[in-house]
């Protein structure tokens, strides 16, 4: 048994495995990038980098470990080979420190994968918001339709919605709500259209409207999901059915418990610990071209009654409250001169935001520990050689 474990430990900590995994990582990056061209970033990321295994038929038929397997084994290989089994001495101290830095870098990736949120915030000049919304994730929100100020929203998360296709439904209730919800008929991309006899409905026809299924766009953020909600009043037993397309001007409303309620399917929203108000957005084009050379936003960060002016521009994000706001885009695209523009910020909440910086510092220290003694020994040897040559002459 001991031999088996010993052999396994040698295999997992071997240079050969490290080389294989690095080669695999190269192939994942290569084929993932090629796959992204036709299938979009989101799908490529899920298929090649957030998977255990990848089975591909083109451009080269191949079965290989996915990003999760590859990075997991690489971490194990690094831990066993670079930290556990490595000979500990003053000469290897630098190498150990470098491996610690790389381990920190890998850990930052894992933490980002598991615990980060990302989305976007779109503002026209004068608009203010204290929340950003996901690119891909959905949620159903229910709230008191009569509320005009801050209101408590009851939320059903993405994970409880996306499997509700092909006849599957799920019921939801809350002590705070006088009705029961039944959700189903989830579609990844659809439009609510007046039902005629010229197209097949992908949902029940409600009030003359139904969902027209659309092809799933590989660029996931371009899809507009749809869902069917059935509301049952717990006191009266009265029911109503509603189409909930993500693309809608107003939420569905219904009466229950003496109140009017609103229900909507929308991109998942994340609260921010501060609000951002866009004061001014500026775009500068390349001379003689309609291609943006730079664009920047003057915003006011409002937090706890205090307001602070901040400029967000390319490569100069706003970092605050655990969030990073990047100036990422603007629109409407191709709008003629003089058209009001909106500014788009990519918003990331990443607990390991600074870990890559720390790991670079650690790796830098390790490299100094490795190379400074070598440099020092080289300098000493050169000096000795110069002295010996001088002595001979």
């Amino acid at each position, binding site marked *: 048994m001991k031999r088996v474990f010993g052999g396994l430990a040698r295999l997992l900590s071997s240079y050969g495995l490290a080389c294989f995994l690095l080669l695999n990582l190269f192939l994942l990056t290569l084929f993932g990038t090629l796959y992204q061209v036709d299938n979009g970033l989101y799908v490529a990321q899920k298929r090649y980098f957030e998977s255990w295994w990848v089975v591909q038929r083109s451009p080269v038929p191949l079965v290989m470990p996915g990003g999760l397997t590859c990075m997991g084994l690489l971490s194990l290989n690094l831990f066993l080979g670079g930290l556990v089994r490595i000979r500990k001495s003053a000469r290897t101290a630098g190498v150990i420190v470098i491996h610690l830095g790389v381990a920190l870098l890998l850990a930052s990736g894992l933490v980002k994968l598991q615990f980060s949120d990302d989305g976007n915030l779109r503002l026209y000049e004068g608009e203010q918001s204290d929340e950003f919304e996901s690119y891909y994730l959905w949620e159903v929100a229910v709230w008191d339709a009569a509320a005009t100020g801050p209101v408590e929203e009851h939320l059903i998360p993405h994970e409880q919605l996306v499997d509700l296709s092909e006849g599957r439904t799920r019921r939801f209730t809350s002590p705070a709500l006088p009705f029961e919800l039944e959700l189903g008929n989830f579609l990844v991309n659809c439009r609510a259209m007046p039902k005629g006899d010229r197209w097949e409905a992908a949902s029940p026809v409600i009030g003359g409207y139904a969902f027209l299924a659309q092809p799933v766009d590989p660029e996931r953020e371009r899809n507009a999901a749809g869902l069917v909600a059935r509301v049952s009043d717990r006191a009266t037993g009265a029911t109503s059915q509603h189409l909930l397309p993500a693309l*809608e001007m107003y939420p569905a409303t219904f009466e229950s418990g003496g109140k009017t309620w609103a229900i909507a399917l929308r991109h998942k929203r994340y609260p921010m610990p501060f609000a951002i108000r866009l004061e001014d957005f500026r775009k500068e084009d390349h001379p003689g071209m309609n291609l943006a050379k730079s664009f920047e936003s003057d915003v006011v960060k409002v937090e706890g009654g205090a307001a602070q002016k901040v400029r967000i521009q390319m490569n100069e994000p706003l970092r605050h409250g655990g969030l990073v706001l990047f100036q990422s885009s603007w629109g409407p695209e191709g709008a003629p001169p*003089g058209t009001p523009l909106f500014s788009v910020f990519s918003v990331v909440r990443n607990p390991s935001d600074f870990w890559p910086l720390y790991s670079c510092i650690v790796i830098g220290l390790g490299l100094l520990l490795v190379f400074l003694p070598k440099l020092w020994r080289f300098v000493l040897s050169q000096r000795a050689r110069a002295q010996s040559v001088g002595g001979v002459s």
Partner: protein
Amino acid sequence: MRRALALAALALAACGKPAGPVEEIVLTRTASQPMPVKIGASAVDRFGDPTGMRAPSSDASGMADLFAYDLPTGWKSLPSTSDRLVNLLPAGDPGASCYLSFLGGTGGGLEVNVNRWRKQFGSDPLDAGQVEALPRRTMLGHDATLVEIAGVFTGMGGDEPREGYALLGLISCQTEGSLFLKFTGPAPLVAAERENFLAFSASLRVEEGAHPDLGGGGGADVHAHGEEMPEAPESAFTWTAPEGWSQLPARPFRDVSFGMAGGQGECYVSVLGGDGGGLEANFVRWCDQVGRPPLTEDEFAALERVPFLGTKVPLLQLTGDFTGMDGRTQLGHGLIGVALVRPGGSVFVKLTGPEKLVLAEREHFLAFVASIEERP
């Protein structure tokens, strides 16, 4: 179709029965700015126009009056419905039907709809090349594809199969909306009434004075050729639309838009406050849209000048791969445009489409530009 209906039925059935354990909504959050609510909003209020086009409302009673046509001998007019803007009983045969319908957007495109009809007859689908090779006709001023199918007709809702049936139809799919004229019936009847059907389709027109706005918000434009367009109340101009051009629904940034050649080409007038960024900036933008570098000073000075709103303005004519405001790039396209830049408001007229079409429409474009006048 059956599978979709089965699924829909399953979903409906499932909605009426308990569906497993009830889960508690545990997530709550206080939103500082709730989403705007319109209590009792109608479907149109809620769903707006997701395709850029408002589809016909359920009340089509006013739409039937939009259309005029020459009713073939022996055919009967039936009341229109929400789906059938024109509803006819061909040759008085109760087993046959002929109707015109409209769908906002492309409805999935020509190939999808041709094959949808073929599927209703159990026919194999056609590929894109075969669909492209189908004969063409003109319907309501739009290029339309003629579809002829025979076999066992199952209809749209999985109806009882009817053997020995045939379909004769016209489909016009465009971004702004799609028109379907569908004639089904016993095959001998359809064959006998073929010429009547084609004559009827060619005679379809919009009643004089009727607004072409199908469904109240958009719709296929169906003006008679060569007529002076009805003056849109929001437009600051009057104009004479060239033959073959049809007015399109209102779009952002545009004063008026026209389509041509079955929606392949497009011309629009836009008005911007002030100098709209200036003539040079807009010409640079147009050059950029077809992927060519900006004009040099010499090229700019050499541009042909054409009459427009009481003055002469440079005419820009470009060809290349056109990237529109939707970000899509279309290869081998052309662009012809004029711009009148004035401090009090600038006017832009632009024609885009396949290169051959744009060149063929050049004279129409110039005539259109010359016909534009400020509304008194």
